[in-house]
């Protein structure tokens, strides 16, 4: 198959898919590593390095790549390179927007949303399989955190009960190891699962452009490129999201962190085993909340959680809107030029989000700082940080609240 139609368009789609892969790693580092960073089981740089390495290994571990995008959600007959490009661009923009806001949100839902929007713009409402969208994307977004909260709260309750009369240093020392073990498992599973999605998209693009045969397996350079893009994204560390997950939702100790990570790993692996795919982000966030629910005296900042749930509900429509706009621009300009314009707009958007993030940077130095007044959910921050910041407590609530914490082991 020497002949490739539209090599430039193909190159743009491949580059955009790799960029999405990067934002995917970048956005999802927190799912595996937020608790280990928050409890200081690992230093921030160590954590992202470990996670990136395991993402890389995971990407090479299992290569059952299918050349698909949004299977069962969008009519596969209307998937053209332009739809894929607009969908990826929509997913990237949503990932970057939620990153700037520090909200963990599912990368796969962002991608599905982008593709759904592009499909709507390309083929109207019959381009989207609505039943599939509801049953595979929208409802699981509600179900995943509930399951994870249940599992993690039971685990945390049992663990804290069994270890309540053990010296805090002993607990911390030993539970850190358990935490690192289960966090590593999440990273590995993420590398296998999510890097393969990007490989699938690139394979789909290569087949569509006639660059490889219909039944070809993934070329080696695609595997290497996807694994590297994701690992690089993970290593860059979406610190804003890590901070929200590790410090914003719940104040965690290493017992809670271990229970949360094990719950996440178990639910993620079981959901794919039973063929009912749940988003890693939704599961990990639910597990962290569950570890706050399960420990007596720990406080969950429900207002932060509420922001997240809201973001998850609008992920698909928001990414779809961007995807549809990009497809519209592509179509309006027409031809190869349309795709150049889409790519250019995407670069501008990425630059804008980066500039926005510089106004209040979060990095490996300040990722673990106490959750401050003014950050989302600060109205009950005094209850959660009372063990650390007594002055802050005095400023915000009457001092009597300081004696209510039951479990400090």
């Amino acid at each position, binding site marked *: 198959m020497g002949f490739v139609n539209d090599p430039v368009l193909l190159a743009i789609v491949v580059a955009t898919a790799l960029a999405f892969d990067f934002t995917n790693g970048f956005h999802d580092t927190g799912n595996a590593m937020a608790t280990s960073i928050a409890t200081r089981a690992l230093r921030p740089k160590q954590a992202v390095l470990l996670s990136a390495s395991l993402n890389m290994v995971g990407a090479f571990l299992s290569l059952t790549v299918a050349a698909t995008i949004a299977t069962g959600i969008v009519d596969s007959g209307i998937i053209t390179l332009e739809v894929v490009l607009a969908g990826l661009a929509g997913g990237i923009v949503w990932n970057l927007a939620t990153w700037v806001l520090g909200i963990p949100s599912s990368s796969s839902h962002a991608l599905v949303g982008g593709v759904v929007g592009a499909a709507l713009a390309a083929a109207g409402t019959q381009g989207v399989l609505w039943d599939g969208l509801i049953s595979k994307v929208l409802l699981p977004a509600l179900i995943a955190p509930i*399951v994870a909260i249940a599992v993690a709260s039971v685990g945390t309750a049992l663990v804290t009960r069994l270890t309540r009369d053990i010296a805090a240093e002993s607990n911390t020392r030993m539970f850190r190891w358990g935490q690192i073990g289960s966090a590593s498992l999440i990273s590995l599973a993420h590398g296998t699962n999510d890097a393969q999605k990007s490989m699938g998209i690139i394979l789909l693009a290569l087949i569509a452009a006639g660059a490889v045969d219909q039944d070809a397996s993934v070329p080696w350079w695609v595997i290497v490129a996807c694994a590297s893009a994701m690992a690089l994204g993970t290593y860059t560390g979406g610190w804003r999201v890590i901070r929200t997950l590790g410090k914003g939702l719940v104040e965690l100790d290493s017992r809670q962190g271990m229970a949360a990570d094990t719950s996440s790993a178990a639910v993620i692996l079981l959901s794919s085993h039973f063929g*009912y795919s749940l988003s890693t982000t939704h599961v990990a966030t639910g597990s962290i909340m569950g570890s706050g629910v399960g420990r007596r005296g720990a406080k969950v900042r429900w207002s932060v959680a509420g922001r997240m749930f809201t973001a998850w509900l609008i992920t698909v429509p928001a990414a779809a809107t961007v995807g549809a706009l990009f497809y519209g621009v592509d179509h309006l300009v027409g031809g190869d030029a349309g795709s150049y314009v889409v790519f250019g707009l995407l670069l501008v958007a990425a630059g804008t989000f980066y500039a926005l993030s510089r106004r209040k940077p979060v990095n490996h130095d300040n990722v673990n700082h106490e959750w401050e007044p003014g950050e989302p959910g600060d109205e009950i921050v005094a209850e959660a940080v009372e063990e650390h910041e007594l002055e802050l407590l005095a400023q915000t609530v009457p001092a009597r609240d300081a004696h209510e914490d039951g479990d400090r082991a």
Partner: protein
Amino acid sequence: MTQYVEWDALANILIFGLLIGAGLPTLFALGVRALAGPGSRDDAGRTVTWRVAAAVACFAIVIAAIVGAIIYIAAGGH
């Protein structure tokens, strides 16, 4: 609702999730308790032998579960 939610899969995820996802941390906590809980040291300050054995057994099961999960991921289950 019924056609939109795979209740069987969901029930399985919840049941096995609780068994594994909450059970393994509990087992780990039992191991920690055996090593560092009240009464784990004898008069000479050494950890009591049977407690060490119990802790090793707990941690061994946890490690076996992690190894099993890695094999599962590598085998393409995920």
